[in-house]
């Protein structure tokens, strides 16, 4: 069995942004207690001992935790390569200095759009100017400038402007990540999924920009899997290399996996990380190929794509053991092509515009039927 090479700590669900495309669970407001500093540090030590080496610090907004510097310091001294995934809100001169001192290796900064108007609308905050200042701080502290912009129907036509913004900010890397439809994004899918024409235009614009920039900036364009005919090898298969710990200590084989029914995901407060990774039924459930149904079970490509994404299979077909409907061999593939067709019609204004539900605690309680 491989070690969990990749450890993602979702330190908190608290976030100053309210992005409608967030993959966090829509019922996040039910999460009451976050792990303490000592509990996070214990997770780091245990996972490192198992061989974890890449560390993602995410959330929510990880800077909402005032012990982030302590956690980074411990992670660094244990030998993790530490990646901070942030909206930039809360990253001031003092904190970035302390994080650098603690050994933080890398910062990935998100923007929602190239314009103040849409950035602020999509995140339901006024953060555009602040993010631009944070980008400058990141450069000053000699970090590579890594920008991430999540793409969807409402901003994908601005890709050229987004690329120009990245150039202006002096980005070394730009990730144009098409929305993955989980959590809030799934809830808002009818409003967010772009049309095929939009995706093709954006890809072409990205390619022109790459030609122009040559070596100066690396641009990743993550194609939305709804437009593919074969599924992504999601997480390299569940329980293969990724381990996520959510804010309350629940251990997951993927950050979206909490939704999968029938799996009793263990908590690091109750069990050692080694047992969770190696022995727990939840982490073993989707290892290997035994769990597969047809057409995956007899498919020669199963060793390449592992049947795609379990969460997508569950969300669209109601059964997590089905083939990811992105695959055109799946009997449910029409669910994907129909969603893409609807997106095309919506883009042409043929159907009514769906309303965006922003990620905040009130909407979370409403959606999850929680009154607490």
């Amino acid at each position, binding site marked *: 069995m491989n070690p969990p090479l990749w450890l993602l700590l979702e330190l908190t669900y608290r976030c100053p942004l309210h992005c409608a495309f967030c993959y966090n669970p829509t019922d996040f407001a039910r999460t009451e207690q976050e792990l303490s500093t000592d509990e996070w540090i214990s997770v780091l030590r245990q996972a490192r001992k198992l061989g974890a*080496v890449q560390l993602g610090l995410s959330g929510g907004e990880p800077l909402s935790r005032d012990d982030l510097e302590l956690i980074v310091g411990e992670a660094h001294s244990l030998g993790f390569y530490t990646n901070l995934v942030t909206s930039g809100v809360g990253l001031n001169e003092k904190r970035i200095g302390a994080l650098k001192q603690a050994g933080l290796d890398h910062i990935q900064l998100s923007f929602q759009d190239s314009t103040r108007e849409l950035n602020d609308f999509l995140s339901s905050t006024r953060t555009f100017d602040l993010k631009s200042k944070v980008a400058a701080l990141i450069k000053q502290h000699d*970090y*590579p400038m890594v920008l991430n912009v999540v793409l969807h129907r409402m901003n994908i036509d601005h890709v050229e402007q987004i690329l120009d913004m990245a150039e202006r900010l002096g980005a070394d890397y730009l990730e144009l990540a098409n929305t993955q439809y989980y959590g809030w994004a799934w809830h808002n899918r009818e409003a967010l999924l772009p049309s095929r024409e939009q995706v093709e235009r954006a890809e072409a614009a990205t390619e022109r920009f790459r030609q122009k920039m040559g070596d100066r900036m690396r641009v990743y364009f993550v194609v939305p899997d709804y437009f593919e005919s074969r599924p992504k090898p999601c997480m390299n298969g569940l329980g293969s290399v990724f381990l996520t710990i959510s804010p309350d200590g629940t251990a997951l084989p993927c950050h979206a996996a909490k939704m999968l029914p029938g799996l009793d995901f263990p908590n690091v407060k109750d069990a050692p990380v080694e047992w969770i990774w190696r022995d727990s039924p939840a982490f073993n459930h989707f290892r290997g190929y035994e769990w597969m149904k047809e057409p995956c079970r007899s498919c020669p490509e199963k060793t390449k794509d592992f049947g795609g994404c379990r969460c997508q299979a569950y969300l669209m077909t109601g059964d997590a053991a089905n083939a990811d409907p992105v695959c055109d061999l799946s009997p449910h593939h029409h669910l994907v092509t129909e969603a893409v067709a609807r997106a095309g019609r919506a883009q042409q204004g043929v159907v009514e515009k769906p309303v965006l539900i922003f990620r905040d605690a009130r909407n979370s309680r409403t959606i999850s039927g929680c009154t607490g």
Partner: protein
Amino acid sequence: MNTTPVPLTAKPAVGRGFRLQWEPAQNAHVLLYPEGMVKLNGSAGEILKRCDGTRSVSAIVEDLEQAFDTRDLTRDVTDFMSFAVERKWLELRE
């Protein structure tokens, strides 16, 4: 194929944002970078761990030839370094 020339006087160092370390769990040197990792084979690890920005390529070759009791490694080492520079694993300093 065009390859990046690696002068014998250059002083290679692990690239900015990359970190080289020994991982007991993988029994290998790994090169870590933002959101990624390369597991290195034995010779790549031996070469990269000597690239500290103070030693010249020729000094590194000499050291390797001595450590592994062999000769004529210049070509293999510079080929690998050229490959590594193209991937930004290494930077060549004056």
